[in-house]
């Protein structure tokens, strides 16, 4: 308990989380502070490239076995399953329509790479190791949830086909998955020698870049929250706080069965607990345009993301320590 508290304090008072808080507060105060869209996108490319590359290098160092495949499959299964649970809960407690509930559910089955990155960074500060292949698991968990959500909607009607117009291909080849998997492969191929060549670009400044990126995330989350908070009724907000813990608990069970390390377990829990706000919203605009974006975006980015970043990650790290 003590260590949980000190973990939480170290996390909340880190430059990363404080940068997010600064952005969030600036947006609520309606400051005109903004990070240009191109810069924000460049920062996210950097983070994806760096995290993928480092994951690949660590797999090159440690070798790869059945555990990678098993964890990948577990991640995919979680991503398929969590939307079904989320949908059931939302339909019971929230009063959202089928389409809105399915769209929200898709976000919680998928993952947030930035939450994952923040968790790896917190693990690093705490000196806890984790399996390098968790990056690949993150990539594998992005898409399945979208299929679950489309299936949930299509049960009730005929017209939406998951593969309408190449949507499936689009989801699987979306930029962040490709970059994450690709840089993972590059890291794997070039190994520690490759890392040495570019480590003063992808390792040394990493946390600082993360600060600026989280500043922008805070701005965006704060703006979304300010504009749309009145569309979120209390049961929906509560869902945004409880669902990470439900998904996380499920993932904790998987981690125990898989025999992951403490750090690996913390990351699998974080992935399950996190919710998407890039890939899934874009897919929803194409596949379920009737779903209201201010509900799913605000909930994911304005409620669950800050919750995970501040309170969630220390809990998930502590939980990871319990099962390892």
């Amino acid at each position, binding site marked *: 308990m003590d260590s949980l508290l000190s973990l939480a304090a170290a996390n909340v008072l880190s430059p990363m989380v404080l940068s997010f808080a600064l952005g969030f507060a600036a947006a609520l105060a309606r400051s005109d502070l903004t990070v240009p*869209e191109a810069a924000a996108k460049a920062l996210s490319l950097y983070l994806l490239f760096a995290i993928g590359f480092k994951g690949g290098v660590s797999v090159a160092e440690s070798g790869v076995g059945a555990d990678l495949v098993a964890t990948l499959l577990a991640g995919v299964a979680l991503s398929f399953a969590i939307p079904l649970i989320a949908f059931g809960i939302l339909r019971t407690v929230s009063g959202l329509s089928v389409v809105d509930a399915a769209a929200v559910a898709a976000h919680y089955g998928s993952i947030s790479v930035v939450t994952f990155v923040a968790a790896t960074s917190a693990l690093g500060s705490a000196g806890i190791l984790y399996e390098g292949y968790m990056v690949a698991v993150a990539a594998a968990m992005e898409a399945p949830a979208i299929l679950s959500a489309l299936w949930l909607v299509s049960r009730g009607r005929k017209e939406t086909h998951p593969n309408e117009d190449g949507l499936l291909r689009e989801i699987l080849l979306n930029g962040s998955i490709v970059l994450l998997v690709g840089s993972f492969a590059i890291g794997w191929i070039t190994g520690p020698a490759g890392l040495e060549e570019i480590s003063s670009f992808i390792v040394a400044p990493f946390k600082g870049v993360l600060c600026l990126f989280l500043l922008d995330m805070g701005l965006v989350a704060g703006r979304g929250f300010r504009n749309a908070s009145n569309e979120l009724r209390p049961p929906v907000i509560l869902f945004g706080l409880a669902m990470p813990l439900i998904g996380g608990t499920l993932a904790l069970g998987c981690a125990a069965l898989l025999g992951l390390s403490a750090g690996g377990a913390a990351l699998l829990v974080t992935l399950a607990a996190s919710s998407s706000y890039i890939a899934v919203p874009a897919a929803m605009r194409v596949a379920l345009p009737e779903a209201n974006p*201010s509900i799913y*975006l605000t909930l994911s980015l304005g409620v669950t993301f800050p919750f995970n970043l501040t309170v969630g990650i220390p809990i998930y790290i502590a939980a990871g320590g319990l099962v390892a």
Partner: protein
Amino acid sequence: MQTHAAKRVEIIIEAPMEERLTRALAKAGVTGFTVLPVLGGSGRSGRWSREGQVSRAGGMVAVVCIVRPERVDTLLDAAFAVVERHVGVVSITDCQVLRAERF
């Protein structure tokens, strides 16, 4: 200077739909169009702005097509099939063009 009557169709649509729209236009034989970026806007689904977005999820674009008057209905049918279920606005203006052979 010699000019010719034409129609200027402006379609404001969500960025994730751009690809589908231009594919539909091409299928309908409309091969000339220009895509402009959009910074923000407001409509029935509220106010939005590029700044309040993470990445491409919610942005919009404006697609401008200049066509001969007799082709405008084909164009609108094709566009409407894509825009129908989505947010977005279609407007048509009379215009004049140079070099009619290009349209």
